[in-house]
């Protein structure tokens, strides 16, 4: 997407917010922030577990874990946590397929869990994720990392690590594309 200018609007009315390069840089910056805030490079570093929320939070958690290992030399555990069964809107649409849940070896008890998702919007997904975590164990603390915070919260929830704050209108769509699903990285506002 190098040929395309950032912020440019294509004929379909889509605006590119982050290019592939931006996504990589943003993930790297978030990895640094996680290392700093959790004091991961200190001798008494906590046990950090990154839990990605499917679908796109899962590869983001994997990328963050790889970057954290690269920058700090510390291997953090990562897993995926499907929140579908904890949603508050299951009866407002057709049957939702379930996604993968995979806890890291050693579980989440007494760990510092960082939830990872692509977009933070109403906050309801995170509310569901907190409920799901509670059934899997008792983390020491829970933090939240999101690639894009688009505002319009409906619950008292905020992120500890934000890749990009993006003011949006409620009718707009924030589309996060990741190589693992979409063949390329990028964030587009539709």
């Amino acid at each position: 997407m190098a040929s395309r200018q950032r912020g440019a609007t294509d004929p379909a009315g889509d605006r590119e917010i982050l290019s592939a390069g931006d996504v990589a840089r943003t993930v790297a910056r978030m990895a640094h922030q996680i290392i700093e805030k959790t004091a991961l490079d200190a001798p008494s570093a906590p046990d950090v577990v990154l839990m990605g929320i499917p679908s796109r939070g899962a590869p983001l958690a994997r990328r963050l874990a790889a970057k954290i290992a690269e920058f700090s030399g510390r291997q953090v555990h990562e897993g995926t946590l499907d929140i579908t069964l904890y949603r508050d809107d299951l009866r407002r649409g057709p049957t939702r397929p379930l996604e993968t849940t995979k806890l890291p070896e050693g579980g989440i008890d007494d760990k510092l869990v960082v939830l990872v998702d692509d977009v933070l919007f109403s906050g309801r997904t995170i509310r569901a994720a907190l409920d799901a975590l509670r059934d899997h164990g008792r983390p020491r603390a829970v933090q939240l990392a999101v690639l894009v915070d688009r505002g319009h919260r409906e619950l008292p929830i905020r992120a500890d690590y934000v890749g990009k704050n993006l003011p949006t209108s409620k009718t707009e769509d924030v589309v996060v594309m990741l190589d693992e699903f979409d063949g390329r990285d990028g964030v587009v506002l539709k």
Partner: protein
Amino acid sequence: MKHLLSTDGLDRDQATAILDTADRLKQALLGREVRKLPTLRGRTVITMFYENSTRTRVSFEIAGKWMSADVINVSSSGSSVSKGESLRDTALTLQAAGADCVIVRHPASGAAHRLAGWLKHTNTSVVNAGDGMHEHPTQALLDAATLRDRLGSLDGRRVAIVGDVLHSRVARSNVHLLTALGAEVTLVAPPTLLPTGVEKWPVAVSHSIDAELASQDAVMMLRVQAERMTGGFFPSSREYSIAYGLNERRLKLLPEHAVVLHPGPMLRGMEIASVVADSPQAAITEQVRNGVHVRMAVLYHLLAHEEENA
């Protein structure tokens, strides 16, 4: 999906969706501190068993409870059924009392379909937990789940269903489901225990178990259903066992990877020898374990979406 009455009519995508949900539920519950999901909180599931059952009733009850539904069990003895209330009136009573889902087992073939007809203009879902000699869809789904676990996929796999096919709802449900999922099914039974019209089923038919075993990826042994037999279908149980029982010698005829299934309850020494039932190739306890996850998945697909009609 509003009801689950039979596997006849379930297409490959629908069946795969339920089996995938069951896999994910199993995964989500693995190693958890709290084995309970909030998904069906506030929903009421009633089991209505007009026939004896251990595993199916318990498995549905556990499935509902693990998803936080309120589960109420009604059996024919101890309810107004023993005073002569009809199935229709009992069903309408349970619906009026607030059932979101009625799970029914009944000795009459077609009972679940009738029930769904009576509840047509309500939001109550019906699950067939076995109706006479007709269908037992969740049993077939848990068999398919177990075979997927052991064999990877059912595509092109060969499955022999052996024994009392005539009286078996398990066999009927499995024939539809396994063929929809791409398996090749062979029915192995004496001519007296095969239903009329079997030649129109999408299956091969054989009368010799020894001839079939070497080429199978799985063999499903059926219980001889003495309670449904009204005539002489075979000379003696000893003779049946010799001709169609899965004994140690026959186990050796099966390929090493082949899976032995039995829907239970087993008659050890009759259709299946004890050593076979306890061998590593037997997946009989896995079937029971998968039964809970498959039934959770069925409840999820029936109850966790917007209402389809009012």
